């Protein structure tokens, strides 16, 4: 183009929320109607902690938009047979035909009942990573709400996709669905595999870089030298799945090698259940009258209820209480006279006594001296007794944090790690205070946008917790969802998010082999899939694909053909990131390190017209609602807030008439107005056009609200630590319920309900699993693990050539990373082709030889091994997901498993389709 030609240049504000570590704000540069590049949103630099910048993924959005392989018309399947080797025979159809076909199915289902004979929803839906697809599905949540019960239990993957146990225990203990270091203030971080430099998002990367310049010490404990380990002060290689032993040893060292004065005794005494008295049966001793837990009052020298005015609780010791009760499972009360007891803190000290650094060194293969040094450094940096002023308030200053990575946080051993991490913070009063370990959002409690408001007083001086009932009459004996989350996992609760946090692989496993105690769960009659590719992203992908092929009717919102929509009946092309409209919440304290000093809303607006016949998701949702006869319920859901904001509130009312079909712009105009009115308490109202010009609207968010501690003090609440009486009781009740129903296959999971975690040989479980599959563990001598790449994590980017090109600058992209000395022993050279094998499957790729990897571990980054997605299918990259079994045995009590598998590695000849080195 000649420079003389006047270019029509527009800069369109938008956001990127492709991964859970967002949203971040960006600008789309459009020249003559063509989106040409993504730029940071400079206008947001003052409010966005990452200075208005977006990560590498966002720079793939232009290629993503103009990808010639996009599905750009609705399509229907013409081959009724489904399977990997069946050509679906997709043919283009009109939107009318597509929507009417779906609506006819839905109406038929509605006529027969939303639940099937087994009480399971007939309609299921699966959305991808961490709830972020909700930020791209327009008003589809209003359609789902209008519909009624939907089964969300068919997961799109766990493991590296999720910090499962942290979600559940973090939210239970400190409203920390996601947990982060207070990187802005901290001075010392122990990070067990938390790969923040790759998956923590723009805010984390910037904050950790600033912290490094400030002199933070981050100790990265993980089997291979990730970018996060690279950017840490110290890398401590650890044997996979032994993190709990390492963390226990830190606690042991702090408790047994350092004076008690190094701990935050006041915090332990007043803000935790440390002084509560534990009876010999494991339950809290309680006042016979009030049933309140007892503690030992130093002043009166006797046991008093925990909330007795003027009492000075004793932190440690063994006592005898004259007259008390304990409250066991199912309301069973046991009376005690002269009850021998110890404080919860003492119980914890006793429990940690065996776990010395020397003991842990054998298990983790970390030198005991290193463990001792890290424990001492942790104490040295904890600044017990110091304070800091935040927003004019004086708060404790405890600049030490412990963070956990995804394989640490998932599957067996995760409970122990979550407890130990939270306990380390608790010992020095570094939980939910400046510099310490923070929760950043809630999902099992409400409201989502401010976790502090979710704190309400519950039982025994703790925050209220919303467990699924395990009592004899309330327990849900027959699952209401295909993964049985309410039946099997009390702690996950029953919030709208709970189902997707249940054991999401069980839905897939049970679809073929349901437990005999339950009705054989029929597959859903209609399955919606959006921004999700479980056929690649879950474990044992061959088995998942088989299960998918048996789904009777799949409606897939399709970007390109992929491995999951290969089984679909209808493909719907939705308008993409640069083509569609949606207003979302930004800021406040959100996922991972997205805690801001502002909060508000940002708009995604079409920078360019949708390609082909792609349609805005809101249009699709509205049409589906109308054609299914649900328009009034749909509009009512919108009015209630299904598009992110209630459309009416104090002093404003932008509700939509419920009987009409509204245009996309009408709906979002109302949402924009309601959002700004809500945020400004009616002082400012901005419409859709205003947002299209300005992009975002924010108001200050108090920094003090990053921390839960002031709320706990204000409400006089204690963190439910260290002792887990509630979990002990719930576990006992669940055991009874399951056994009453003759269910014994969840017994090993029930063993996890311990009031104080104990080490069990966690890695050995994976060795045993090999044996259980009928193989000799000796034949699978390596640990196979995975790790994320920023360009790919949750981005649906496998078919974007730019992402592949720039990722190739990083070691191990598309390869099998292994220790160079190990490789030499196996006769493997850099770039040789290798096969990695487990009893579940095999995967092939080039070897990438490094020193920064344990000799017994191989790392397969990302999730590849595509066979349908254009571009991606030609990459010939390996994937750990083909090797990891869907295994009940490897599922922990929260229903999670981990991306870990024992594997064998051997050199092979290059496959025919791969080019030469």
């Amino acid at each position, binding site marked *: 183009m000649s420079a003389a030609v006047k270019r029509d240049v527009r800069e369109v504000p938008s956001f990127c929320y492709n991964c859970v570590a967002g949203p971040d704000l960006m600008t789309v540069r459009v020249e003559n109607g063509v989106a040409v590049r993504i730029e940071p949103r400079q206008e947001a630099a003052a409010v966005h902690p990452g200075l208005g910048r977006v990560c590498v993924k966002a720079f793939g959005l232009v290629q993503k938009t103009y990808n010639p392989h996009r599905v750009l018309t609705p399509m229907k399947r013409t081959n009724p047979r489904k399977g990997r080797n069946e050509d679906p025979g997709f043919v283009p159809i009109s939107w009318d035909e597509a929507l009417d076909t779906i609506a006819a199915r839905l109406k038929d289902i509605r006529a027969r009942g939303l639940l099937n004979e087994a009480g399971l929803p007939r309609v299921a839906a699966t959305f991808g990573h961490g709830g972020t697809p909700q930020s791209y599905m327009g008003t589809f949540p209003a359609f789902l709400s209008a519909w009624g019960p939907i089964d969300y239990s068919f997961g799109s993957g766990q493991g590296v996709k999720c910090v499962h146990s942290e979600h559940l225990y973090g939210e239970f203990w400190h409203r920390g669905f996601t947990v982060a270091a207070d990187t802005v203030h901290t001075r010392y971080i122990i990070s067990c595999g938390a790969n923040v430099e790759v998956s923590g998002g723009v805010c984390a990367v910037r904050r950790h870089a600033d912290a490094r310049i400030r*002199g933070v*010490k981050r100790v990265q404990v993980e089997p291979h030298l990730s970018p996060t380990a*690279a950017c*840490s*002060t110290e890398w401590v290689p650890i044997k996979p799945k032994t993190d709990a032993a390492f963390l226990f040893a830190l606690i042991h060292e702090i408790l047994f090698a350092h004076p008690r004065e190094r701990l935050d005794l006041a915090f332990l005494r007043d803000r935790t259940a440390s002084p509560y008295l534990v009876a010999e049966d494991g339950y809290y001793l309680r006042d016979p009258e009030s049933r309140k837990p007892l503690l030992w009052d130093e002043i009166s020298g006797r046991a008093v209820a925990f909330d007795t005015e003027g009492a000075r609780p004793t932190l440690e010791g063994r006592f005898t209480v004259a007259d008390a009760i304990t409250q066991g499972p199912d309301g069973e009360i046991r009376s005690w006279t002269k009850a021998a007891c110890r404080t919860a803190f003492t119980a914890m000290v006793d429990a940690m006594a065996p776990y010395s650094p020397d003991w842990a060194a054998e298990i983790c293969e970390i030198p005991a001296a290193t463990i001792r040094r890290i424990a001492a450094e942790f104490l040295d940096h904890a600044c017990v007794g110091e304070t800091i002023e935040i927003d004019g308030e004086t708060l404790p200053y405890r600049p030490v944090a412990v963070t956990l990575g995804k394989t640490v946080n998932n599957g067996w051993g995760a409970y122990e790690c979550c407890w130990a991490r939270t306990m380390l913070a608790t010992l020095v009063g570094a939980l939910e205070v400046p510099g310490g370990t923070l929760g950043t959002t809630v999902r099992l409690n409400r409201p989502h946008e401010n976790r502090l408001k979710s704190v309400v007083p519950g039982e025994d001086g703790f925050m209220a917790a919303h467990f699924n009932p395990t009592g004899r009459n309330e327990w849900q004996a027959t699952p209401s969802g295909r993964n049985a989350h309410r039946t099997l996992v009390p702690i996950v609760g029953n919030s709208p998010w709970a189902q997707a946090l249940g054991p999401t692989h069980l839905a897939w496993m049970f679809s073929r082999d349901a437990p005999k105690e339950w009705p054989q769960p029929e597959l859903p009659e209609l399955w919606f899939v959006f921004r999700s590719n479980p056929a690649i992203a879950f474990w044992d992908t061959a088995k998942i694909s088989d299960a998918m092929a048996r789904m009777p009717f799949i409606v897939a919102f399709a970007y390109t053909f992929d491995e999951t929509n290969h089984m679909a009946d209808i493909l719907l092309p939705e308008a993409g990131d640069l083509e569609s409209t949606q207003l979302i919440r930004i800021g406040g304290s959100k996922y991972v390190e997205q805690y801001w000093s502002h909060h508000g809303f940002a708009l995604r607006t079409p920078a360019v017209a949708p390609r082909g016949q792609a349609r805005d998701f809101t249009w699709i949702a509205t049409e589906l609602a109308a054609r299914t006869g649900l328009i009034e319920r749909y509009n009512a859901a919108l009015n209630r807030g299904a598009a992110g904001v209630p459309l009416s509130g104090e002093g404003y009312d932008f509700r939509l008439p419920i009987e009409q079909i509204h245009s996309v712009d009408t709906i979002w105009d109302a949402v924009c107005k309601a959002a700004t009115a809500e945020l400004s308490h009616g002082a400012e109202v901005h419409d859709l056009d205003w947002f299209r010009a300005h992009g975002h609207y924010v108001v200050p968010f108090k920094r003090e609200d990053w921390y839960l501690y002031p709320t706990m003090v204000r409400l006089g609440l204690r963190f439910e630590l260290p002792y887990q009486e509630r979990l002990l009781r719930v576990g006992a009740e669940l055991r009874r319920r399951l056994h009453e129903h003759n269910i014994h296959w969840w017994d090993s999971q029930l063993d996890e309900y311990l009031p104080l975690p104990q080490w069990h040989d966690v890695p050995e479980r994976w060795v045993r699993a090999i044996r259980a599959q009928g193989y000799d563990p000796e034949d699978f001598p390596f640990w196979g693990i995975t790790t994320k790449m920023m360009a790919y994590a949750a981005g649906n980017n496998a078919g974007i050539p730019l992402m592949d090109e720039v990722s190739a600058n*990083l070691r191990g*992209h598309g390869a099998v990373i292994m220790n160079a000395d190990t490789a030499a022993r196996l006769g493997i050279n850099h770039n040789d082709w290798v096969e990695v094998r487990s009893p579940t499957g095999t995967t092939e790729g080039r070897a*990438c030889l490094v020193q920064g990897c344990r000799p017994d571990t191989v790392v397969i980054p990302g999730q590849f091994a595509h066979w349908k997605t254009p571009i991606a299918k030609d990459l010939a990259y390996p994937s750990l997901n083909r090797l990891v079994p869907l295994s009940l045995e490897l599922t922990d009590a929260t229903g999670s498993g981990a991306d870990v598998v024992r594997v064998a590695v051997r050199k092979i000849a290059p496959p025919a389709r791969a080019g030469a080195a």
Partner: protein
Amino acid sequence: MNTSNATGRQQNSGVALASRRQRYWDLRAAGNFIGGGSGTGLIVAAAVAATSGTPFRVPLLLGLALIAAGLTLVWLEIGKPWRALHVFFQPRTSWMTREGIVASVMIPFGVVAAAAANPALTWLTAVLAVGFLYCQARILRAARAIVAWRQKEIVGLILAAGLAEGFALALIVGLRGGIGLGLAVAAGLAREFAWHRYCAALRREPGAAASLAVFGAPVPRRLAFVQRVGLALIAAALIVSLAGVSGTAIDAASAVLAIGGGALLALTSWGMKALLITRAAFTGALIVPVTPIRGARPESAADGKAPALVQRHAR
């Protein structure tokens, strides 16, 4: 302003990007150095022949043709062949421009010299040809990215190799008199000496391991051996010539020795040049003298570790 400072080396390990083989100059570029060298040698041989009254048109024209062929090959290699005249724009600093200028003067002179069978013009052409070959040598020396080229010893090597190849080819086209044989042996020995000096320089260069590995591989080692055999055959022919013995059989045998030796010498030298321009042409390692201090100073920072072997792991 402080000075650029790598003194952290005592405290920190350095890291380096392993060298990479250049991807841009292929056998066409090698052909230019082969044609340029051999052509120059032939033209010089022609000039010597002209002085001694021996017919010299064939070697002169062949030499010019080789140079022209080499330039044509490189013309085929460049990205914008129709802009080739731009090559003349930078005589102040660029040896490539100088190479072009010298060639554009030399070739007409050479053609006229051949047409007129004029020894003086042939000598002038030969002088220009040596200048041309010198430019080629300096082109390589100025290519500072490529360890195997940027050595100052490359200049002597390119000159000696070119003359040796050309004199060897001259034996084949008939200049098999004592002077021709003597020049070929002398140039061959000079080439051997230059090669020895060049390899010694490479061995002193920390980043030249990859290039040395290429030259040390079995095929190049065999090439070097065969080259010496070729030189020995020519030397044998020279001894026969110096001994003054003659006879049909002896002359025939001597011719076979000279032609065979010349062919072996020229071909193997071409082979080595092709290797030098393509397979042995690695970029220099990129030394990062220190590892950065990420956050608190690590305990190991005081260890005084020496820089270690480093690989590049990405593609």
